[in-house]
């Protein structure tokens, strides 16, 4: 007859009794589970929300770059008699295009884009009133009638542009191709009219590029009903003169066309010179990562099917950088998730180790009770089920509390990350307990003969070695995977939603769980190596102390040697401190990267841009700023983006042309943390073959030693340049040609300074006070904006929170490990007291037992953290968050690291007296009697 298998039968009074007796350790485990589930449950949805914010932020920052433009030529207006036909219903053609493209964009784009504005714009004309270079553009705007139409204006003088007299007389008139300038009526804003000094009825003196006169008359002067209206955004010159749009020193103005004057404007220019454009601006508030993915796909399709703008009959041409902006945001989100995953993996690893340690503490406390239960006849399945019921109840209650709070903090709690912690908490206690109960009453005895004992020892060592080797192999594999593949998902993680899904679901990064675990596994492997070394170290310390005359050193070292092989406390302490160090280093490196990036972007503490090209005024302004309190140095210069430089093989490149006083600029660099540019000294000496310049090129198109030419507009002769050295990255530009102002002036091109850089604590204030219409850029503001960007701010907050949690887990490892070993320690100390050890000396011996592992963790933990930060921060792609061209240099935060390292020894200094005070309540006889048990 086969034996009957009965299901486990828990003994409920035992379950209750054990739980009440060990309420402390159980509550501790519950607290760890609750905190970690809170973190693991809240971080993914917070990240997902941050990802949505990041997408919105990216689109907001991209500004007009994120607009979707649809260009289409107007229909040809060739008439039957060899001339051009006036098209009185031309505005309807524009409306048709707007309606058509609204139909073409998909529902995702429609949901995220604002109602479109259709426009027709003329070529840029020159105002020929003899003043400084001013330009004017005629623009017709037609917003979507469903969004209120517009733009809305109030005519403060005159009235809206109407048809020309000829057009009104014969709306369908055919005019010869080479006839006189066709008259057009336009409206002007008050500011533009004032700038031009014209009134209704006046003709604006204009010529086109071919120097042909244009007959443009002012019908009225308007005031915008709402200057913030979307329609105005891409054409601000319709509202006020805008400097710099058409090159340094120019000012653009705008003239508004109406539905009635649009047909005349068409005839005033060549057929191909007027173009219909429909502009959609994204509404950042409506964007989510999910929507961003659909939009990216949609835009890519539309661009693929896009026609040529020169084609009158083909499909319209789609033009936007929205897909690139969203793809970049997706890459940033993927990087942010990956970095967060690494931090979370570290917290989870440390938490699991702490839970194993807490289970070990429980089992040590319960060892005698479990053995007694076995001797009374309790089966292992019964005991196991009792322990499982207890751990499941405690863990699930704690996890539920953690998730509940996580849900309140961040709706949409994720479960995935918490699973390992919950499993460890449920299984560790019953596993260890059942094993202890089995060993307590098992038949396994220490073999009598030495070879059998040696065999047992080797088997145990082999088992431990295999486990350690497995961790080591996993750590190496993770590290190799991380360094080879990087943390980003294949393809760079450009899909925002794809990047968001894994973390939001709490299932790690799409780049792979293994690479994300590299720092945690690496630190764990390092801790295992330390665990191997510690017994040798404590043995050595014991041997040295035996030669000393200090008895306390001997007893302390003896206790340390006896307990140095205990794995879990050391693993928790080392892992906690190392990963806290890693998190702090990540945060500090990102912070420094942000600061460096801000320096690189501004080039000084503050900068004034887009000054009027008046060299004398700018120089005076620079002197005024330089004299302001708190300003160390102010330097004026000319910065022109998109200069035309013919490099090797007459390839035209468009670098940033920077014209400065080389000596002053070098002095300026010396007052900043920006790298020095020693080659600036070479600009003073004449160079063979041209004006000496320094060059910097992202793609190597310009190199020192090359002969180049600076091309000029208006048929002026090109200026030969000789590249004599490497240029610094001025204000973050990758392609730079830097030339000394005096040398360029000597070559025939006077400097028109438009930029002032200033350094010193008062620079931002001084620059802002002297802005007077120019753009003041403050390094502090740039830094603040980048630091407050959703992903960056989120990651920095997470890194700091993780560092705190990890440090606390490391301290918890010390406290729980000390609690687990306390009975044995104080029994030994009590025995030593029977030999004459004084109570206060017992505390020193206790500290001597705990300190070696603590000091090892305090030293090795931060070192391991720094090592793995050094090995892994590169592949973590922090540059994507800091806005730097290369990965930021590792920055160890020494003071916080000192605090992390000192926390453990300080905790020992608190723990030992506290433990001693608790133990002194028990009489020595009680301790010794308990020990007999």
């Amino acid at each position, binding site marked *: 007859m086969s034996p009957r298998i009965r299901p486990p039968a828990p003994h409920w009074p035992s379950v209750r009794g054990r739980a009440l007796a060990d309420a402390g350790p159980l509550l501790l485990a519950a607290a760890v589970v609750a905190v970690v589930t809170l973190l693991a449950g809240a971080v993914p949805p917070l990240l997902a929300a941050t990802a949505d914010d990041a997408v919105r932020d990216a689109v907001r920052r991209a500004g007009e770059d994120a607009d979707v433009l649809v260009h289409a030529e107007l229909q040809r207006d060739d008439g039957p008699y060899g001339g051009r036909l006036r098209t009185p219903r031309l505005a309807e053609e524009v409306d048709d295009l707007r309606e058509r493209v609204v139909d073409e964009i998909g529902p995702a784009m429609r949901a995220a884009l604002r109602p479109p504005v259709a426009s027709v714009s003329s070529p840029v004309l020159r105002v020929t009133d003899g003043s400084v270079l001013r330009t004017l553009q005629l623009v017709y705007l037609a917003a979507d009638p469903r969004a209120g139409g517009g733009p809305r204006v109030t005519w403060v003088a005159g009235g809206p542009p109407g048809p020309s007299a000829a057009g009104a007389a014969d709306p369908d008139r055919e005019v010869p191709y080479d006839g006189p300038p066709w008259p057009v009526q336009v409206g002007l804003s008050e500011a533009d009219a004032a700038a031009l000094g014209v009134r209704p009825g006046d003709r604006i003196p204009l010529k086109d590029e071919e120097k042909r006169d244009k007959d443009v008359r002012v019908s009225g002067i308007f005031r915008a009903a709402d200057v913030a209206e979307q329609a105005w955004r891409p054409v601000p010159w319709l509202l006020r003169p805008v400097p710099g749009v058409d090159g340094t020193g120019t000012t653009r103005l705008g003239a508004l066309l109406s539905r009635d004057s649009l047909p005349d404007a068409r005839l005033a220019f060549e057929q191909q010179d007027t173009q219909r454009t429909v502009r959609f601006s994204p509404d950042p508030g409506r964007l989510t990562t999910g929507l961003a993915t659909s939009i990216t796909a949609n835009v890519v399709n539309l661009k693929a099917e896009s026609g040529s703008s020169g084609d009158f009959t083909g499909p319209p041409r789609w033009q936007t950088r929205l897909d690139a902006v969203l793809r970049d945001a997706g890459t940033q989100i993927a990087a942010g998730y990956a970095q967060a995953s690494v931090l979370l993996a570290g917290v989870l690893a440390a938490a699991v180790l702490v839970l194993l340690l807490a289970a070990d503490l429980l089992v040590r406390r319960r060892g005698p009770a479990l053995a007694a239960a076995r001797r009374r006849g309790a089966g292992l399945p019964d005991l196991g089920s009792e322990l499982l019921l207890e751990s499941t109840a405690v863990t699930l209650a704690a996890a539920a509390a953690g998730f509940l709070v996580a849900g309140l903090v961040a709706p949409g709690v994720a479960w995935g990350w918490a699973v390992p912690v919950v499993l460890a908490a449920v299984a560790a206690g019953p596993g260890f307990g059942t094993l202890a109960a089995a060993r307590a009453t098992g038949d396994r005895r220490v073999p009598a003969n030495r070879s059998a004992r040696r065999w047992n020892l080797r088997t145990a060592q082999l088992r431990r070695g295999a486990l350690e080797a497995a961790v080591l192999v996993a750590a190496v594999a993770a590290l190799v995977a991380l360094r080879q593949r990087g943390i980003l998902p294949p393809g760079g993680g450009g899909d925002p939603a794809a990047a968001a899904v894994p973390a939001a679901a709490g299932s790690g990064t799409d780049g792979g769980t293994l690479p994300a675990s590299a720092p945690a596994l690496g630190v764990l492997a390092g801790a295992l190596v330390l665990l191997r070394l510690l017994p040798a170290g404590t043995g050595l310390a*014991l041997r040295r102390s*035996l030669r000393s*005359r200090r*008895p306390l050193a*001997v*007893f302390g070292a*003896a*206790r340390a*040697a*006896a307990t140095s092989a205990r794995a879990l406390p050391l693993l928790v302490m080392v892992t906690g401190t190392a990963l806290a160090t890693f998190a702090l280093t990540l945060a500090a490196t990102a912070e420094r990267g942000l600061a460096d990036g801000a320096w690189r972007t501004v080039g000084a503490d503050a900068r004034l841009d887009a000054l009027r090209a008046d060299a004398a005024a700018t120089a005076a302004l620079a002197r005024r700023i330089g004299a302001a309190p708190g300003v160390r140095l102010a330097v004026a210069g000319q910065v022109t983006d998109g200069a035309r430089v013919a490099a090797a093989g007459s390839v035209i490149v468009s670098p940033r042309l920077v014209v400065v006083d080389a000596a002053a600029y070098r002095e300026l660099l010396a007052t900043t943390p920006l790298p020095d540019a020693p080659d600036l000294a070479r600009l003073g000496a004449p160079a063979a073959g041209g004006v000496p310049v320094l060059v910097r090129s992202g793609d190597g198109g310009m190199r020192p030693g090359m002969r180049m030419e600076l091309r000029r507009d208006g048929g002026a002769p090109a200026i030969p340049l000789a590249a004599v050295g490497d240029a610094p990255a001025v204000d973050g530009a990758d392609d730079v040609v830097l030339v000394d102002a005096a040398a360029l002036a000597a070559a025939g091109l006077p400097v028109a300074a438009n930029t002032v850089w200033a350094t010193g604590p008062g620079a931002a204030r001084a620059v802002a006070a002297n802005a007077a219409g120019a753009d003041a850029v403050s390094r502090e503001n740039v830094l603040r904006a980048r630091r407050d960007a959703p992903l960056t701010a989120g990651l920095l907050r997470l890194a700091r929170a993780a560092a705190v949690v990890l440090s606390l887990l490391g301290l918890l490892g010390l406290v729980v490990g000390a609690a687990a070993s306390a009975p044995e320690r104080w029994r*030994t100390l009590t*025995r*030593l*007291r*029977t*030999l*004459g*050890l*004084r*109570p206060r000396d017992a505390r020193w011996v206790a500290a001597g037992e705990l300190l070696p592992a603590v000091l090892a963790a305090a030293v090795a933990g931060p070192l391991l953290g720094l090592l793995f930060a050094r090995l892994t921060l590169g592949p973590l792609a922090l540059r994507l968050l800091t806005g730097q061209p290369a990965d930021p240099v590792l920055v160890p935060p020494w003071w916080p690291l000192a605090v992390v390292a000192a926390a453990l020894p300080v905790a020992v200094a608190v723990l030992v007296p506290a433990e001693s005070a608790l133990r002194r309540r028990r*009489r*020595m*006889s009680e301790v*010794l*009697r308990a*020990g*007999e048990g």
Partner: protein
Amino acid sequence: MSAGPAAGPLVSVRGVHRTYGTGAATVHALRDVSFDLTPGTMVALVGRSGSGKTTLLNVIGGLDRPDAGTVRVDGVEVTALDEDGLARLRRERVSYVFQTFGLIPVLSAAENVGAPLRLARMPAAERERRVGLLLELVGLAGHAEQRPGELSGGQQQRVAIARALAASPRLLIADEPTGQLDAETGLSVMALLRGVVESEGVTALVSTHDPTMIALADRVIRIRDGRLDGQEAP
């Protein structure tokens, strides 16, 4: 601590009471216990489990304090000593042997024996000489470098006895020293104790159940339910 050996009894116990717990759960471990021990004798303390043997040993050795009564050891009133005084008493006059040996596992037998001498800050050369003598006395001269885990139970108890004798105590208190040993080993340990009492002139107070062990004592003190139940020669 009043110093100096006194003439007369080495140990003088007078009217010692010791109770545990309160109210209905009160346990009277010792009730009005009084006796004297003569120097250089081996005294067996006999009684059933729970009779108060260990409590009496702890009170005499200063590991526990009586609720009433006095204990004097070698002229020192143990019950009036503070923690430092008790530590000095244990370092200089009273030593213990426990049922579970109480050795430090990572130290060799010689280092375990030398532990009290380190606490007494004895110079290294003198300490080593004394340790050698003691290990020879307990028959473990050849096991000096072995650790407790490499020794049998009987050998470990011998090391514990050597350690107890290291500081040349006046009183050696042994609580069930053979409790974890087989009969033959236990007997040899008791014989060893008997021998050191004679050779070192120490007074030994040994609690035991074993009649064979009792036979080796100079005197037997019986205790029952916390009260003395007679004193007699074995």
